[in-house]
């Protein structure tokens, strides 16, 4: 106030000389005041707006500004390939494309475009029409995982026909070039992720991590980058490859051979495993029937995996090899131990019989194996102390998962020490009252082949971590001695008599000309899952290795419910021989040239 008065005092004299001017424009202080008020009003509007923008709701405006023409695209990571041991792809990814539509542009021509897409891409007309007409949307998936060339051609053709608002974007495609070969192991991908096999079990290993790119675009549709604009990019991390120990060509041959045998014997199903004796690598693991990974929907769900791993069964007489190997390791018997085999043998209130009727037979232990005598095996195994057999079988890997990395694997059934009794043991001696999967059985036989040292079977070269966190592969395979080298060698030679003994041998069909081969037949009664009883059907099998004195491969074949009434020797023996012969030739294994075993089988 004081200042204003002072100003007035000062100004007053100055007004005197120009009274005219004052009259025209009004007194100075009035003009100044009006001007000041005007300025203040404008400034307070600015100030108010500033507070509104920055103080009250700063984010919504920022977001609106950012949303305009900012494009955020996902950069899909490429899924790792699944390769066989030679690097041949069993599953690979290629640049598929997804076809997308902007309904804002496609709305007016929707029926024509939908008809066009139905013809070019094979999409459903009605659902495509609904997508093309979707209100308030500028982004609709028309079809995903289209081969790139087909998608590009379709969109180009659409452009030529004058249809606007269609474009494509990257969307990796999964291919299974070999169809059903190894499909039981590889599995397959659904639209929303892996559904079976290694694809599912090693999804985290294979998948990689999607990246994304956010940038200003000249138009959200064309996606042309605006230089000097926002540009945030996180590169995708591609998935890791998975190299299997599987040999694709061998897998094919085994699959076809097994299929032929299953069909010719009018059997229900079959499985076959080929293992590298010295490394435990699984060269092929075949199921029949199986499915086509390119068209999994064509096969029933139960076939879209590996039954060799998930289905357990009673192995039958092949098991005798393990029983006897333990006895030899303990020094309780020798191959020439003489056994007087009676007609039948009482155990647990029920008689045990042999597969062929006979009077009292004079067999050596080698003869018991060669002729596959249940009674002889049980009598020899009576020498085991309590609990010893179970320890051996457990060491051979029975009753435990093999740890290939596939979680669908079943552990099988080895009676616990609490439920174990003598009658049970007598039946376990020859492979009943115990259930296994095919890979367990192969690994157990491989222990004999590998001089008594069991190697964990493996399906993956190197090592990889599956979805449940288990690290598996050849790098992590453990080796454990189960029986002595001598016991293993003796067992192998007794198994050679199964094939080369002209009188007592049960599987002459399993021979591979020129090579020394060891093996064992098995014909087991099957448990029907419905009645939990033996229903009269059988599982016939043959497991063995070659060459006997320096084994390179262990092959195991099992066929369920042959309709022709054949046994392990006649049905699976020839399959074993063909597969073994093919494998030896394929890997260039020469015959060892040593004399075959001639150990006596009778006395």
């Amino acid at each position: 106030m004081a200042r204003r008065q002072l100003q007035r005092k000062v100004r007053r004299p100055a007004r005197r000389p120009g009274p005219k001017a004052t009259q025209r424009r009004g007194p100075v202080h009035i003009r100044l005041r009006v001007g000041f008020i005007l300025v203040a009003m404008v400034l307070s509007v600015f100030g108010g707006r500033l507070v509104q923008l920055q103080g009250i709701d700063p984010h919504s405006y920022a977001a609106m500004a950012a949303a305009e023409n900012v494009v955020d695209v996902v950069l899909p990571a490429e899924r790792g390939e699944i390769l066989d041991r030679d690097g041949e792809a069993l599953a690979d990814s290629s640049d598929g494309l997804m076809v997308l539509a902007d309904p804002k542009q496609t709305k007016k021509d929707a029926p024509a475009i939908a008809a066009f897409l139905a013809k070019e891409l094979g999409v459903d007309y009605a659902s495509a029409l609904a997508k093309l007409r979707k209100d308030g949307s500028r982004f609709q998936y028309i079809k995903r995982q289209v081969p790139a060339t087909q998608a590009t051609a379709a969109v180009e053709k659409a452009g030529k026909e004058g249809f606007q608002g269609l474009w494509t974007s990257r969307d990796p495609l999964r291919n299974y070039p070999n169809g059903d070969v190894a499909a039981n192991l590889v599995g397959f991908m659904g639209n929303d992720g892996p559904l079976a096999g290694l694809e599912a079990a090693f999804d985290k290993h294979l998948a990689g991590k999607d990246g994304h790119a956010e940038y200003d675009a000249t138009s959200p549709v064309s996606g042309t980058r605006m230089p000097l604009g926002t540009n945030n990019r996180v590169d995708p991390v591609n998935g890791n490859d998975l190299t299997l120990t599987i040999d694709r060509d061998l897998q094919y041959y085994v699959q076809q051979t097994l299929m032929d045998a299953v069909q010719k014997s009018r059997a229900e199903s079959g499985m076959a495993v080929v293992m590298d004796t010295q490394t435990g690598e699984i060269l092929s693991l075949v199921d029949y029937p199986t499915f086509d990974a390119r068209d999994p929907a064509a096969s029933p769900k139960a076939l879209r995996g590996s039954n060799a791993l998930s289905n357990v069964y009673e192995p039958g007489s092949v098991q005798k090899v393990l029983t006897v190997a333990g006895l030899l390791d303990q020094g309780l018997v020798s191959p020439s131990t003489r056994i007087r085999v009676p007609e039948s043998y009482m155990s647990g209130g029920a008689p045990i019989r042999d597969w062929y009727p006979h009077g009292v037979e004079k067999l050596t232990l080698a003869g018991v194996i060669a002729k596959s005598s249940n009674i002889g095996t049980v009598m020899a195994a009576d020498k085991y102390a309590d609990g010893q057999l179970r320890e051996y079988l457990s060491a051979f890997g029975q009753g435990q998962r093999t740890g290939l990395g596939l979680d669908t694997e079943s552990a099988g059934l080895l009676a616990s020490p609490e439920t174990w009794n003598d009658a049970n043991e007598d039946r376990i001696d020859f492979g009943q009252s115990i259930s296994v999967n095919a890979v367990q059985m192969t690994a157990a036989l491989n222990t004999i082949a590998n001089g008594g040292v069991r190697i964990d079977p493996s399906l993956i070269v190197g090592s990889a971590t599956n979805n449940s966190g288990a690290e598996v592969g050849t790098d992590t395979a453990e080796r454990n001695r189960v029986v002595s080298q001598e016991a293993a060698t003796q067992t192998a030679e007794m198994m050679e008599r199964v094939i080369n003994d002209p009188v007592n041998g049960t599987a002459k069909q399993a021979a591979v000309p020129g090579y020394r081969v060891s093996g064992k037949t098995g014909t087991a009664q099957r448990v029907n899952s419905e009645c939990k009883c033996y229903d009269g059907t059988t599982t016939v099998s043959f497991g063995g290795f070659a060459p006997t004195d320096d084994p390179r491969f262990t092959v195991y074949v099992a066929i369920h419910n042959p309709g022709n009434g054949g046994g392990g020797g006649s049905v699976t023996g020839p399959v074993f021989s063909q597969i073994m012969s093919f494998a030896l030739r394929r890997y260039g294994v020469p015959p060892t040239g040593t004399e075959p075993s001639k150990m006596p089988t009778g006395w």
Partner: protein
Amino acid sequence: MSIAAAPQAPARRPDRAAETTQPRLAAVPEPLPAPLAPRLPFVVLVSMLLVGGVVGLLVFNTSMQQSAFQEQRLQEQATTLAAREQALDGELKKMEDPHKIAAAAKKLGMVVPQNAAMLRVPEAKVEGEAVPADRSATPPLHPKVAKPYSVQVAEQKAAEAAAAKKKAAELAEKKRQEAAEKQAAEEQRTSTGEAR
């Protein structure tokens, strides 16, 4: 306010003095002629800089945009070519499918040998037994199996189950009828009993 008013007062004071005291009037010494800066070149320079800057920025921006378009075009071309390469690679892999190779081999009359002998060249030795190849070790090609065996079994089981169900239903129906008859008879008996 105060700042605006302050210079006015001293500015007018000399005027008042001039009215009263004439002799004090003296020629104000002319200000030293300031070196007149050539204004025109400076304005031109600034304008040129400005225009140059704007035009330069425009050209730069345009060329950036141009290269962005080119980048996109080349990117699309690269994608198309990569897709073609992959399509061809895919075709190649499909041809490497063991099923295809086996079929082609069969067409040429080739078979898988059952057994082969091995030659040891330095020792001039033959190992193993060579057997003339026939078709015995050659598995058949992928035959068109209409339905896997297990499906046939499942279907058979389903049919059996359906038959059993039908039978059970028939049996139940029969039982119910019998029960109804029995009940009717009993009712009759009781009614006759009552009558008695």
